[in-house]
């Protein structure tokens, strides 16, 4: 079914945010072993903005990202992408939504080893059986600067190149929002910087919305806005961040 129909069908307050969460709780396990990873989070990610999520290890960053991206379900609360409430969608609809309206970059296992770089980039289009929009594909490929590597398989690419291919794949469907979980986690600082510039460029030049989890204050400083998480709760945020200010704030959280 066409997802635009779904949008008009579903009720929900109109919003300018690309995605948002209301009163989000996530509990893993039960009884004594229960871990409350998210303890009531309400947040909105504005369109055409680059948001970084930071926080100590175990603070719930990945959990938040997974729940927001429809990869996991919240124990309580609601998640909206545009006006669609993800918590009401069937498994099939959710898969379609991820395919057509979201983009992903993970820390690792981003590429299918049997496919070439080009095929990895067009993967979501191929899954949908959509003809790739040649023009946009070219723009993306040229921006990540990997035109001469398109026929290579992932094993023939460096870690940085692989992550750039993954980013290109996340962007090629022109998703409403791209979620990235520590995309530079395995990269050296130069490759990391290249990838981050590319992400920021996508936000600036084509109005892409990106939410990125990171541990690195320098990486976070590429974002327009930084949201801090601690112990499953929001612990402040910052606009127009710099690496030093982020570092300072982080210290207060870990103390």
């Amino acid at each position, binding site marked *: 079914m066409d997802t635009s129909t779904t949008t008009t069908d579903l009720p929900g307050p109109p919003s300018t945010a690309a995605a948002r969460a209301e009163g989000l709780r996530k509990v893993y396990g039960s009884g004594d072993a229960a871990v409350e990873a998210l303890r009531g989070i309400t947040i909105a990610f504005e369109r055409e903005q680059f948001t970084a999520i930071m926080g100590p290890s175990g603070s719930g960053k990945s959990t938040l990202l997974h729940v927001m991206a429809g990869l996991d379900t919240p124990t309580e609360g609601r998640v909206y992408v545009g006006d669609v409430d993800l918590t009401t969608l069937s498994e099939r609809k959710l898969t379609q939504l991820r395919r057509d309206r979201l983009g992903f970059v993970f820390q690792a296992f981003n590429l299918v080893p049997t*496919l070439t770089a080009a095929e990895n980039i067009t993967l979501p289009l191929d*899954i949908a059986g959509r003809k790739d929009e040649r023009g946009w594909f070219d723009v993306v490929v040229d921006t990540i600067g990997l035109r001469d590597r398109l026929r290579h398989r992932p094993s023939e690419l460096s870690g940085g190149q692989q992550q750039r291919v993954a980013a290109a794949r996340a962007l090629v469907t022109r998703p409403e929002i791209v979620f990235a979980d520590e995309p530079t986690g395995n990269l050296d600082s130069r490759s990391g910087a290249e990838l981050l510039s590319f992400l920021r460029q996508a936000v600036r030049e084509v109005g892409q919305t990106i939410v990125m989890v990171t541990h690195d204050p320098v990486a976070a400083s590429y974002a327009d806005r930084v949201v801090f998480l601690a112990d499953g709760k929001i612990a402040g945020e910052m606009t127009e961040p710099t690496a030093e200010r982020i570092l300072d704030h982080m210290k207060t959280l870990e103390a």
Partner: protein
Amino acid sequence: MWRATFKSLLARKVRLLLTTLSVVLGVGFVAGTFVLTDTMNATFDQLFHNLTKNTDVIVQSRSAFDSAGSNNADQREPMPDSIVHTIESVNGVAKAIPQVNGFAQIVDPATGKPIGGMGPPAIGASWSGDPSEAITLRSGAAPHGPDETAIDAATARKYGIGLGDRVKILFEGPSHLFTVTGIVGFGQADNLAGATLAVFDFPTAQRVLDKVGLADAVDVQADPGISATTLRDRVAAVLPKGIEAITATDFADQQAGQIQSALGFFRTALLVFAVVALFVGGFIILNTFTIIVTQRTRELALLRAIGASRGQVTRSVLLEAATLGMVAGAIGVVAGIGIAVGLQALLGAFGIDLPSTSTQILPRTVIVSLAAGLLVTVIASVVPARRASAVAPVEALRADGAPAARSLRRRVPAGIAVTAAGVGTLAYGLVGGGALLFVGLGAAVTFVGVAILSALIVRPAATAVGWPLRALGLPGRLGRENSRRNPRRTASTSGALMVGLGLMAFVAIFGASVRSSVDHVIADTVRADLFLSSSSFEGFGPDAAQVLRTLPQIDAVSEFRVVQARIAGGNATVTGVDPSSIGRVANLEMRSGSLGALRGDAVLVQADTAAEHGWSLGDPVRIEFARTGTQTFTLAGTYERDEIVGQYVIPMSAFEANVTTQLDQAVLATAAPGTSVAEAERAARSALTDFPNVQVRNQAEFRAQQAKQVDAAMSLITALLLLAVLISLFGIVNTLGLSIHERRHEIGLLRAVGMSRAQVRRMVLAESAIVALLGALLGTAVGIFFGWAVQRSLADHGVSQFAIPGGQLALYVALAAVAGVLAGFVPAVRASRLRILDAIAYE
């Protein structure tokens, strides 16, 4: 190391179960075969001892030899029945009961069709009604006089024949109508191992079985206090030359022994299929352990890094395999016993009523089965174990955990060498005078060689085979890529299927070649228009041919009878023919001498056989008959075509003089000049309505009948081979499961970026179909080669034609693909249900 081994075994329960199953089936087949045949042996042993339990000594004429397992198993010369008086006069004899027996086939009164005969014999016998005899009266009374009979309880029940009913019974001589006065059994059993039985009083039996004044045996009972051996010796002392007395126990042992040697053949045949199943199971063990070792590379490297020696690593893998082999062996033994008991029940359902004997589980069965399971698993895991020990400690530090890909180049010389060795052994077995064992060994080694080589062609072959899967879009493409990414794995997974399908294809080709050859033989050697054959294995009485001779629509009529005899120290089939008419119905292609010389003590021998023995015209040929002992014939000619008459032909007069049972195996006839075949056929059919066990066929029907017999044999073999195919399908399930575990991150990623569950399933099914198709195609290719090789080697032995049943082979390949898809179903569903987050979690 022990603890690590068992932990790793238990950690993969499902995998373990499937891997075990691939060995369990083979071991179960081995154990089942032994249990079944041992139980049947014990059953027959018990049966024959029960039959003679009230008899002490049996008197019969001496047999020149035991022609065990043949259709006319007991070709003894009947004795004059006056011998009874001689025996009765011996001191210590309480009773001497003369017996005659022979062929008697009951006709189903409801349908007019003769009952049984395909398998267990149709027996007619005398019965005195004496309660001490083996036969026991169930209801009614013992038959008296020329028109009364009693029949076995199983036949009576199955065909609804009751006391007072009139039944027609067929004999070697004229058939006759009888009133059923009694229903009989054998102790508890309703019939004698499936044989039908009609009994008559002694004089009637003598008459209908064509043994007037004669007796086949005399059952002797001793006075109280006289032992069987004492009685035997006393009786033997008064018997004329050529007649012997043996104790009933010895007699029973001899009878059981004959059945047991026939069962030995049956056992060997079944064990061949068990070995095939174990062989395929070995492929799966090899594959599974290779994958497990690969997946555990990091763990193994860690073990090496902390100081485990290479030997320890090798031993730990072998130990794991041995444990699995023992467990599989134990389960297999239990399963095998279950299979055997089930098969017995099945025989019962087919009307083969055996007295119940406890299931025989001999220590040998358990030991051999366990050893088979252990051996197969350990041998199959040697290569993976060595690979495991070759893991370098530094692999522990490698980020991706996957060992460096090894080149396939080294496979070329190894594959070629193994294949060549296999083909060589096969060729030696087929033409170099080697035994059948070499043929089997050569085939097995060839399969291994082809499996090694096939890894080299997996990539292009998968591309080609998977080409139509493009219709499935991306999932189809990914499935195809997945089948190509690890050629070794794909090669050995499809290799297991290749074995089963290769053998099935071979059987199909061999069957088609035999059919086509038979057609050629009929065209080349048969001049007859009509063919009479029996609805049972035993043949039919000579009257049918006599009736045919009276018909004006029929010209030549020629009978064929066969008997097992011994010639030059070996068993041989001797055919009795009518010299005056055989030339008109068959073309033997005489090489020397002439058909006309076939009279008196003349014998014709197939040209090659005569050459082998160095016989030339006029030489004596000594034939030893069971009934009359060694007789000397003179070689009167040699001929080329042995398809109809076999290797040795004697005139019917000589056959009648030397053989007890005079049943026609076949009668060939030609239409009279000026009469159409259809007319002659009609006349023959209506003249033979009184011979319900005789079937009249024209050439086309005869051909079809021959083809049907070949097909029936081939179908049975194919059905047994399906077990191997089934095992190889488990292999596909297993390998795919392991591969999916290995690719869980990738599948999680595909799901995260929007691949639906259905698409994931399609991807896995596509891979599984490709693996199955590759195996099926390779198998078919190897099968065609085997078929060709075997046909070439038998070209001079009746299989002159090579035929490839294209449609049937295509059907096999298509079915294999479908089976592959079915096998992929469980892994496909599992893949589609992988939790995305687990899959993309970075460890």
